[in-house]
């Protein structure tokens, strides 16, 4: 469970103050697959960063898996990120000097698994995304779609509860985007909660729940479309 209550996020630079999120409320239930859409600059990435503990909130409360994250230390936040959250980025963010095996290994090492456990988890994750045979390759030797699949393997290897994806298909052509989307759906079916920011309306529609962020606020887009479930209405309220 992921519960955001009255969250505000204000960026203060020398010249301007940007209210990236305003009185933001959202509940994500376990096992959901949520697609987040919205215009550029509306606060989608900000929302995802806060959900993934990459940024602090200015005010409000955020409960991740039943625990409030307000006031936690860097070490505690890092540990939570490592254990509960998997990240997928638009730019894949594989580490160029590490091969696929070592890339997937990164979060597992921070977790402190021993080498046997890690090897098994890495192989399993790479098998899931269909790249087990290329463990020794460097990211630069792969196509964009393959790189994103490795990134998904890396996000999943530690078996997090939540998968957060910021435009995961934004840099891919439509065929590869489709493959990645299918992979995410498969993962969601196996029980991982997924929150995905996307520009692609078609992909968004495939998610079981759609939300829209406009100007830092949640819009009950789903209801407007008339496709909202009872579940979603409650969440948006």
């Amino acid at each position, binding site marked *: 469970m992921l519960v955001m209550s009255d969250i505000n996020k204000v960026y203060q630079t020398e010249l301007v103050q940007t209210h990236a999120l305003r009185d933001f409320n959202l509940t994500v239930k376990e096992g959901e697959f949520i697609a987040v859409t919205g215009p550029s600059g509306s606060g989608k*990435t900000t929302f995802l960063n806060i959900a993934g503990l*990459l940024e602090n909130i200015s005010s409000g409360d955020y409960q991740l898996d039943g625990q409030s994250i307000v006031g936690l230390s860097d070490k505690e936040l*890092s540990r939570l990120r490592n254990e509960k959250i998997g990240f997928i*980025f*638009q730019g894949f963010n594989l580490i160029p000097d590490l091969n696929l095996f070592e890339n997937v*290994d990164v979060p597992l*090492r921070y977790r402190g698994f021993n080498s046997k456990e890690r090897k098994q988890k890495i192989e399993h994750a790479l098998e899931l995304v269909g790249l087990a045979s290329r463990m020794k390759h460097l990211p630069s030797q792969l196509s964009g779609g393959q790189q994103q699949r490795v990134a998904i393997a890396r996000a999943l290897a530690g078996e997090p509860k939540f998968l957060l994806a910021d435009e995961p298909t934004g840099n891919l052509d439509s065929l590869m985007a489709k493959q990645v989307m299918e992979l995410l759906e498969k993962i969601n079916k196996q029980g991982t909660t997924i929150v995905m920011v996307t520009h692609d309306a078609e992909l968004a529609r495939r998610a079981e729940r759609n939300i829209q962020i406009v100007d830092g606020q949640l819009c009950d887009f789903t209801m407007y479309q008339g496709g909202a479930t009872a579940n979603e209405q409650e969440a948006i309220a």
Partner: protein
Amino acid sequence: MLHISPIFNAMMRNKSSVVLIIMQIALTLAIVSNAAFIIKERIDDMQRDSGIPETEIVGFSMYFYDEDVDITKQLQVDQQKIMELPYVVEATGINQLPLSGSGDSWGFRNQLEMEGALTSGAGVFAGNSNITQVFDQQITKGRSFRPDELVLRNSGADAPKVAIITQALADELFPDGDALGKYIYSIDLPFQVVGIMDKMQGPWVHSSLVEKTVLLPVLYNQQFIRFAIRVEPGEADTMIKNVQDILLKLENRRVINTASTIAEMKATSYQRDKLMTNMLMVIIAVLIFITALGIAGMTIFNVNRRQKQIGTRRALGASRADIQGYFMTESAMIAGLGIVLGIILALVLNNYLMTYFSSEALSFNYIAATLVGIILVIEVAVFLPALKASKISPAIATRSV
């Protein structure tokens, strides 16, 4: 030290970016350890005990320009007058001064026949029979000279019959330890060893003969001659100030050069060494500074280049301490590779110095101390850039494409 192997692998895939800094560290280690060793050798030399009270002995040279002066007699008159001064302990005319850089050396043998003889060079001090007292020498075996053993070396006179030698020379010529009473020979002149003194350095501080010294009871009849005076502690300056006036009043057909203490002569003799050690210390400091700068610069460059990677690692669960540790570990690894190479280079360089500059074999302690120093300096230099890396916001992972 959880992450050694991936850090190492990543580094090896980027060899070109670390090769230069590894070489720099290796060279620094090689040069600094050898330089430190040379400094130590020089400082040891400078701090060696000369066996004489350097600050209490005043020496000077003088030149009798009138050939009518009876020089051996004048030296004895001078000595008597000087020794009447209340602050003077002993004095003698002499052919050379210790640690001064100039003087006489003779070759000596342990037997008359050349064949099968043990030989050694030695610095020869020729002065009055009180010469051991002038230099405050303790005779460890045998005795000092007797006044009747003094020879005035005017033309046709005999050579002295007796000698006092240092333990170092005795060991060289008489390895069995029975030098006392034996004869040593220079060309065909025999001298009986009547006394052995523990230590008295000769004039040349850089020579292997410096510890091998022979004292002879003889006053030379030479126009250019020297004089040595032992004063009470703290009275050297008074003596230096007054000595010319006093002696010129006795006999003015001579030029008396400015006197100085043996300590001052020693400082002059070691000036080159002092300069050398100072220069090497500057080189060490500069090299270490440049290496620190180099690795700090490399780390800053890497941190900036890898901002996105750092953000990604943070997003994947790295704490600030993990990120800082990453860069500290990486630099320690680079230092380690540089050090392995540096140890080899240090030994090669030392070998070269031994061959061409008669330096000694580098003790491993110097390499060890230098490498510990280099690691410390490197980690200190890397600390701030690594700390900066740890403060990079994890949000950069999603904010930069």
